[in-house]
C-alpha cells in the first residue's frame, strides 16, 4: 500500500564477490566497503585529472607565438619508452594479484617488485625529462605552457609515487607473512589505483605528447 510501484535496483541479498566473498557477511551490494570506496574515489579523480588536462590543453592553445613550447622540448622517443614502461607495470600488477589469489607468495613478491621497479623507472624518466626541459629553459614559471605542463605531469607523478609506496608496503607485509589470498583485496584495490594512474598516463601521453602540436 505504501509502496508506489518502484523499481528496485539494489541487491538486498548478499551476493558473493571477490575471492574471499564466501566468508563475508553481507553488505547490501555484496561489494566490500573498501572496494566501493575505491571506485568512488577513482570516479572523483576523473574530474580532477580532467580539469588538469583541460587546463593544459587550454594553456597550450594560449601560448604566445615564439615562446618555448612543446615542440621545443618534447622528446617523443624517450617518452614513448617510459610510457611503455608504465603500461607494462599494469601487466605485472595484475600478474601479482593473480599470483596472490593463487597463493603463490613468491611469484607475488616478484611481480610486485617488478611493478614497483617499472613505476620507479617511469618516475626516474620523468625526473630526467624535467631536468632536460629545465635545462632547455622551460621552468615552472617560464610561461603558461611550462606551468600547465609541470602541474599536470607533476600531479600524475605524485600519484605514481604514492602508488609505489603502497606497493612497497604490500611487499613488506608479504615478507612479514601477513598477506594471503584472504586479504588479497587490499592488493586488488592498490592495483585499481595503479591501473587508474596508468590510464591517466595513456590520456596524457596521447593528448599532451602525441597530438600534433
Amino acid at each position, binding site marked *: 500500500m505504501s509502496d508506489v510501484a518502484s*523499481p*528496485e*535496483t*539494489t*541487491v*538486498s*541479498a548478499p*551476493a*558473493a*564477490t*571477490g575471492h574471499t566473498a564466501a566468508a563475508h557477511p553481507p553488505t547490501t*551490494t*555484496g*561489494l566490500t566497503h573498501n*572496494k*566501493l570506496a575505491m*571506485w*568512488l574515489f*577513482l*570516479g*572523483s*579523480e*576523473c*574530474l580532477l*585529472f*580532467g*580539469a588538469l*588536462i*583541460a587546463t593544459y*590543453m*587550454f594553456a597550450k*592553445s594560449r601560448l604566445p607565438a615564439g615562446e618555448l613550447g612543446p615542440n621545443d622540448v618534447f622528446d*617523443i*622517443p624517450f617518452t*614513448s619508452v617510459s*610510457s*611503455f614502461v608504465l*603500461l*607494462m607495470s*599494469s*601487466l605485472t*600488477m*595484475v*600478474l601479482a594479484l*593473480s599470483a596472490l*589469489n593463487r597463493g603463490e607468495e613468491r611469484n607475488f613478491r616478484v611481480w610486485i617488485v617488478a611493478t614497483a621497479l617499472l613505476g620507479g623507472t617511469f618516475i626516474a624518466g620523468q625526473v630526467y625529462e624535467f631536468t632536460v626541459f629545465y635545462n632547455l629553459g622551460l621552468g615552472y614559471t617560464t610561461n603558461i605552457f611550462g606551468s600547465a605542463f609541470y602541474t599536470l605531469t607533476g600531479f600524475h607523478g605524485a600519484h605514481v609515487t604514492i602508488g609505489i609506496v603502497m606497493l612497497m608496503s604490500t611487499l613488506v607485509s608479504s615478507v612479514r607473512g601477513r598477506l594471503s589470498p584472504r586479504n588479497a583485496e587490499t592488493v*586488488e584495490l592498490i*592495483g585499481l589505483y595503479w*591501473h*587508474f594512474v*596508468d*590510464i591517466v598516463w*595513456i*590520456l596524457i*601521453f*596521447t*593528448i599532451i605528447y*602525441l*597530438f*600534433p602540436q
Partner: protein
Amino acid sequence: MTQTPSVPTEAAEDVQPADAETEDVAAEHDAEHEHPSDRQYVKVALILGALTALEVATYFESVHHLGDAALYALLVVLMVLKFIYVVAWFMHLKFDSVILRRIFVAGIVLALGVYLVMLTAFRIWGA
C-alpha cells in the same frame, strides 16, 4: 561472547524476497566473476603494446599525409582503445559489479562533458 537476548530480525509480516532483478545481478555476477587467466592478461598487454606502437608510429611522419584531422581521430581511437582495455581487463570492470561500472562511467562522462563544453566555449578547437 554474549548473545543479545532479543530476536534476531524484527519480523514484519512478510519479508519480501529479493526481487528478480536483484537475483539476476547476483547470479550473473557469480557466473562472470572468474578472473581472466594470466595468459589473457599477457594477451591484453600485447595488444596494448601494439596499440602504443601504432600511436608512436604516427609521430614518425609515416601517416602525416592523412592530414591533421585524420591523425587526431586515429590517435583518439587508439587512446580510447587502450583506455578501455586497461579498465575492462586489468581493472576487472568488465567482470565486476554494475554499480562500480556506473560510478566510474559517471565520472568519466561528467568529466568529458563539462571539460569539452568548457574548451568549446573557449573555441580552442581548430586553432
